[in-house]
């Protein structure tokens, strides 16, 4: 069967790589390449492939994640791959990763390949009429999985390579440091609101209840679902060890809220009560407010770096030309009371 062509990379080189790395030198045909719309921190492609074998050819679906030419924030693809590999046999459902390639000689930039799972990852799933019936069940899995992830023993699952964030207020302060540094390096104009926000966050950094695996972008659109079943959590590029409340702050951002339902699922208290029951510890509501401010700041910083990348021509993605989403600023003001 003929191989696909792609505007994005050399399919022959990919076939050669797949043959050597995933099929013991037997041939691999790439039948189709479909680029998936999603985050701009990594390019994602769905591949339909044919693996030659002693008993005939077998069709396999794969996903290829490649570093972008110039992303929004500096990312470490080996780290993302490492987290996914470490969690492969954990209670957290996620795609199984197969191989990482850091040599840009193959496809121009580093990439890794993982399994293609069924299901949909739709950030706007709440608008789909079919979703309404699945909301309670999907929501329950969304919250329970978050609690389960935060309860994981980071040593048992070999996640220590992510680096210790320290204890007490250090996890929060470390994240603030990272993002303030990024903001300072990439800002193209003064931004006094963010300056005030960073000062507020330093003054209000909460105590971490424990050190957990933090997904860093836990929200609708970053998981696969099929009807009422949550199949896998995706997009691990921001994963790190830190304060578990950070993920709650992200999931509670205004932009993911539908009516009064956080991430489109439950009203805040209902969400938190379910999470507390799963996690086994009480959540400090004020700490969650801190992480909401942090998350909104992070969105602004991502917009700033996107605009900077566009202006430096390291990224052609025009939707970032205008910079951060404007209403996020107002949300920071509302939450901090500046």
């Amino acid at each position, binding site marked *: 069967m003929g191989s696909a062509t792609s505007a994005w990379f050399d399919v022959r080189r990919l076939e050669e790589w797949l043959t050597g790395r995933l099929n013991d030198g037997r041939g691999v045909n790439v039948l189709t390449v*479909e*680029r*998936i*719309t999603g985050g701009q921190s990594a390019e994602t492609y769905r591949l339909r492939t044919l693996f030659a074998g002693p008993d005939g050819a077998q069709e396999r679906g794969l996903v290829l994640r490649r570093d972008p030419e110039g992303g929004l924030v500096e990312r470490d693809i080996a780290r993302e791959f490492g987290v996914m590999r470490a969690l492969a046999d954990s209670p957290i459902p996620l795609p199984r990763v197969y191989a990482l390639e850091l040599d840009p000689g193959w496809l121009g930039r580093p990439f890794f390949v993982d399994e293609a799972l069924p299901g949909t990852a739709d950030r706007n799933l709440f608008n789909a009429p079919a979703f309404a019936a699945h909301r309670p069940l999907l929501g329950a899995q969304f919250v329970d999985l978050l609690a389960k992830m935060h309860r994981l023993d980071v040593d048992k699952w070999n996640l220590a390579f992510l680096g210790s964030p320290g204890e007490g207020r250090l996890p929060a302060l470390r994240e603030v440091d990272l993002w303030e540094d990024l903001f300072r390096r990439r800002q193209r*104009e*003064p*931004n*006094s*609101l963010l*300056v*005030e926000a960073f*000062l*507020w966050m330093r003054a209000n950094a909460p105590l971490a209840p424990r050190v957990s695996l933090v997904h860093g972008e836990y929200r609708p659109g970053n998981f696969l679902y099929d009807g009422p079943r949550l199949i896998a959590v995706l997009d691990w590029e921001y994963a790190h060890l830190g304060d578990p409340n950070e993920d709650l702050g992200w999931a509670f951002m205004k932009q993911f809220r539908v009516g009064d339902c956080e991430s489109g699922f439950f009203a805040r208290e209902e969400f938190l009560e379910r999470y507390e029951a799963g996690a086994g510890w009480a959540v400090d509501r004020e700490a969650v407010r801190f992480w909401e401010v942090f998350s909104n700041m992070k969105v602004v910083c991502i917009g700033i770096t996107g605009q900077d990348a566009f202006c430096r021509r390291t990224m052609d*993605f*025009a*939707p970032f*030309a*205008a910079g951060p989403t*404007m*209403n996020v*600023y*107002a*949300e*920071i*003001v*509302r*939450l*901090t*009371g*500046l």
Partner: protein
Amino acid sequence: MYLPPLAEILEGLQRALQRSVIPALDDPYARTIAMRVCGELGTLAGRLVDVRRWCELENAEARLALQSALDALAPADGEASALADLRATVAAALAREFPSDQPDRSEQSLAAEGQVLGGAIETAILRLHELQRLQPADASLAQAREALRAVIRAQAVRRDPGLDAAQIQHRN
């Protein structure tokens, strides 16, 4: 060489994408990106129409906030003090000359003024923060900081018409 206003050019490009390009795209990724580019062209066109009024308004607000902050701060005892340094920074930004009385002033010139004033506000906030840590009871420092925060709030509200000032919770 005559060129139509930039906003109209962007709107024209947006229409071309909407009518001739997007309907012909079969690839879902290309279609989604084209739609986003289309939306962004509209946003940028809208901003270009308002950019002069926007810059003039925000520059005037920033200038007023810096002047209020300066007025709130008592003259420093010593020339080398942190307070004197702060006053000098704010005064220098306010004294920078921009041809604000010219009706045909370019957007670039307005934006440059905004950068200078915005930079001064950023610096002033950081220095006020340090001074307040040393002298938490100093009312003039708090007053100066509040003058600068007022302009931040005004600009945030302007960027989100859905946020009424009354919604802002003062919880500090």
